[in-house]
């Protein structure tokens, strides 16, 4: 029988996979990595892409992750998956937006939350458009 290791794929919002596997292939930032049991300890960020798992018995399963971190121990592989598409610009936009909301709320003495909300939604929409354009550009 082939050697196996324990694989956990978790995101902050839910558990995606947990079980034993023979091979895990993951999209690391420096190119795809294939992890077999008894691999040395390693830690690397992941790109958005497909994680392929060959489960015990040879059955294959593939899971999409939008980036994250891969941690390898000799008999345990853990993938901490991001829940969202992360890009530096996008994080920046979200940060700016949060700051803007605070500033806006302080300015509005009457507590005009509706306008702040509208502005926040505008910023959110703008950020999403930005990302979509970026993703299209890549393709």
């Amino acid at each position, binding site marked *: 029988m082939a050697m196996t290791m324990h694989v956990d794929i978790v995101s902050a919002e839910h*558990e995606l996979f947990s079980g034993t596997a023979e091979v895990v292939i993951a999209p690391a930032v420096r190119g795809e990595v294939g992890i077999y049991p008894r691999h040395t300890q*390693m*830690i690397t960020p992941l790109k958005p892409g497909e994680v392929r798992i060959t489960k015990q018995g040879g059955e294959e399963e593939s899971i999409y992750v939008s980036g994250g971190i891969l941690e390898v121990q000799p008999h345990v592989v853990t993938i901490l998956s991001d829940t*969202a598409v992360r890009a530096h610009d996008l994080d920046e936009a979200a*940060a700016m937006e949060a700051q803007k909301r605070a500033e806006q709320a302080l300015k509005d003495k009457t507590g005009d939350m509706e306008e702040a909300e509208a502005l926040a939604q505008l910023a959110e929409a703008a950020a999403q458009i930005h990302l979509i354009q970026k993703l299209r550009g890549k393709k």
Partner: protein
Amino acid sequence: MASGKEVRTKIKSIQNTQKITKAMEMVAASKMRKAQDRMAASRPYSDKMRQVIHHLAFAHTEYKHPYLLERDEVKRVGYIIISTDRGLCGGLNTNEFKAVLKSVIEWSDQGVEVDYCTIGTKAAGFFKRMKGDIVSQAGHLGDAPSVNDLIGSVKVMLDAYNEGKIDRLYVAYNEFVNTMTQEPRVNQLLPVISIKEEDELKHHWDYIYEPDAKDVLDGLMVRYIESLVYQGVTENVACEMAARMIAMKAATDNAGELINDLQLVYNKARQAAITQEISEIVSGAAAV
């Protein structure tokens, strides 16, 4: 004594209120179950994350991340305050804000200034009224908050920490103990408090870092902090629902009691009116 009609309209209106509170109680109960599931679902991620950080903190890394190092002097501290968006949930927010203020006063007595990051509209309102320095804000996360909604606010605080604007970061939320009890918590996020020192000797190995230790650790630390904040948010949602359920149950019970009392008053008034009518008829008949 109030007339029968007056009492009857009052009973009607209380019954309507009772219907609403009853409905809110049931909605909160069903939402609480979902919130608890979500809370449980976010646990494995932060547990795993903690394990990895634990390994990293004691593995022989050539690079010590600034989040792991204690700063000698504290000039300014940051608070991430997680509250609910809506009220009608008993003393949940008030208790939390009290706990935060207690901690803030300890710092301000030492001449340390405080920055706030508020998550949820109740905290935003409260700390605005307190004339607190709110540097970032998030609200209207709904019942199923996602990590996405938090990234921005958390990043503002992390950037402030990186730039040395704040030297310590706390997160405040309500911990879900059980349906009846919610405990306000104020936990230190940064610098990361190292976990169990005695395990240090066991870890004589280090990871292979790809591309290098700094990048990996940077990404990891940001996600770790985010996951802690996210967990706080999910717990707070569960607390909100539980507290609302309890508050609405109490309101429904109180309305029931009030209706019973009023019913008694109404019956007495009705009886008195009938007695009076009979005596009037009898005395009228006697006069004829």
